[in-house]
């Protein structure tokens, strides 16, 4: 697989008066085309800062981010904004409440000049069907949808302009488990069908275990461990990772066993 995104020696320092916060410190990793890379860590570990730099919301203080072998400029071109898209945690605040679902999707098409005027309505209907919603939902306002349906709309919007890298920032954390399972299934299907690449940011290691190909573990702004998902869960190298995994509340007996094994190692 070829490298889609390359992060090299990236740091981000925020200044508050004479106080400095090193949110991300000297982080390097690659994202391969078509993979799902999870970024995990506790709050304040720098996972959202990394996402914001990838999206171009602010530039890194040091280091470079390369996309398809070209460095990404601090001010992004339209094609970069089109290729790299975001799905946020709370769809209620990420969808404009005054726009209908269709208008939100149409905006993405308008900005990037995709399709002609008549083609766009059909495209919106198709997008909604692709995320498992009826095409008539285009007329509804976000307030008339359930949490899971809204998140589906947010996903449709991220896909509207044929992006290839989607940054998913806690996409299912606000959803009930049954709804979460359906949305995760949808994300997996879309990834296969469209050949998408995901950067999946979450604090939920159980979700990561079941959806990611590789996992990057962040602690206090540093990348402490990066490995294939199955290997990381079977043999976490860092005590921090072991603690994260063994703190996950679990329902099955075999999970309890795995947790016990890891917490014994963490305390040893």
């Amino acid at each position, binding site marked *: 697989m070829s490298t889609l995104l390359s992060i090299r020696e990236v740091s981000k320092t925020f200044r508050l008066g004479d106080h400095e916060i090193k949110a991300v410190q000297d982080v390097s990793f690659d994202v391969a085309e078509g993979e799902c890379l999870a970024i995990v860590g506790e709050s304040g570990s720098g996972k959202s800062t990394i996402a914001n730099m990838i999206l171009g919301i602010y530039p890194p203080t040091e280091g470079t981010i390369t996309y398809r072998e070209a460095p990404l400029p601090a001010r992004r071109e339209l094609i970069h904004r089109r290729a790299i898209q975001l799905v946020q945690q709370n769809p209620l605040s990420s969808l404009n409440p005054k726009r209908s679902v269709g208008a939100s999707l149409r905006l993405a098409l308008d900005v990037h000049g995709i399709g002609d005027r008549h083609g766009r309505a059909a495209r919106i209907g198709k997008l909604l069907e692709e995320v498992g919603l009826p095409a008539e939902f285009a007329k509804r306002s976000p307030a008339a949808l359930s949490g899971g349906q809204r998140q589906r709309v947010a996903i449709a919007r991220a896909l509207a302009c044929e992006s290839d890298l989607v940054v998913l920032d806690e996409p299912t954390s606000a959803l009930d488990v049954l709804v979460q399972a359906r949305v995760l299934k949808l994300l*997996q299907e879309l990834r296969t069908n469209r050949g998408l690449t995901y950067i999946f940011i979450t604090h939920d290691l159980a979700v990561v275990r079941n959806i990611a190909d590789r996992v990057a573990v962040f602690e206090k702004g540093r990348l402490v461990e990066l490995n294939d998902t199955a290997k990381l869960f079977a043999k976490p190298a860092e005590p921090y990772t072991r603690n994260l995994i063994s703190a*996950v*509340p*679990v329902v099955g007996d075999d999970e309890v066993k795995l947790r016990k094994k890891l917490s014994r190692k963490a305390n040893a």
Partner: protein
Amino acid sequence: MSMRTLDICDLYLSFKGYTGTVEVLHGISLHIDRGERVALVGESGSGKSVTARIVLGLLQELRSARISGRLEFEGNDLSRLSAGARHDLRGTKMSMIFQDPTSSLNPVYTISTQFHEVLKRALPSISADEARAVAAKALLDVSITEPDRVLDSYAFQLSGGMNQRVMIAMALANEPSLLIADEPGTALDVTVQAQTLALMHDLVAEHGTSVLFISHNLGVVREFADRVYVIYKGRIVEKGSTGALFADPRHPYTRALMAAVPKITGGGVADVEEASEAFSEPMVDHDAEAAA
């Protein structure tokens, strides 16, 4: 005096609005024995938080709420109590911990001032100095090693985990017989959540406090509760001891919930339905079967 701290029988709740009546609870029954930790688990909108608010007597203040059913707290019929008598129970015999500790503490008062307020509920004459001494001891109990620094802080100066400990200390300060915990720690990091839950578990066991534990997270429930009620759309669909229920979940809804929880041992994303006819099947009662 009955052994039961809380006994709810056939509780119905509906809200009357402009567009008609919305039925929220369809006759739920549950009880909590003295010193028992009981979980009410369900998804958003299932009716778990309104149940807690009825027990506290908060929904009764709402004019649009229609409530019927028997509610007994330590043998006293709550529905016969006046609003004033119910008010006296809150913060003394019953207390509550909410989901987000930082937003449930008042940002403009220090922790010590708020602790004083809490202690005044049970002992109106307590002085600020006396309250501070009691508070410091309560904070030590929740493993806060420098209580003086915390007491002089505002909630926003403390971490989420620290605030949660403060909330637990406050909730237990007046030795309540019932603690209602509504999604405690859901807003915290998993490691912090695990620590504070373990702490709360030990403390309530030590004090003999009964707990109504409200959560959507089956894993957390498994760790914390002695007995579990699963609620779906205002109906209890399955109940039993934590061991029995997790070993052998039998209601289609409980099974779907358990299957939907992602496992740290892998196995992929479960293929479950968001809603199904089968979720409305009659209740499965593990206790009755164990007794029979």
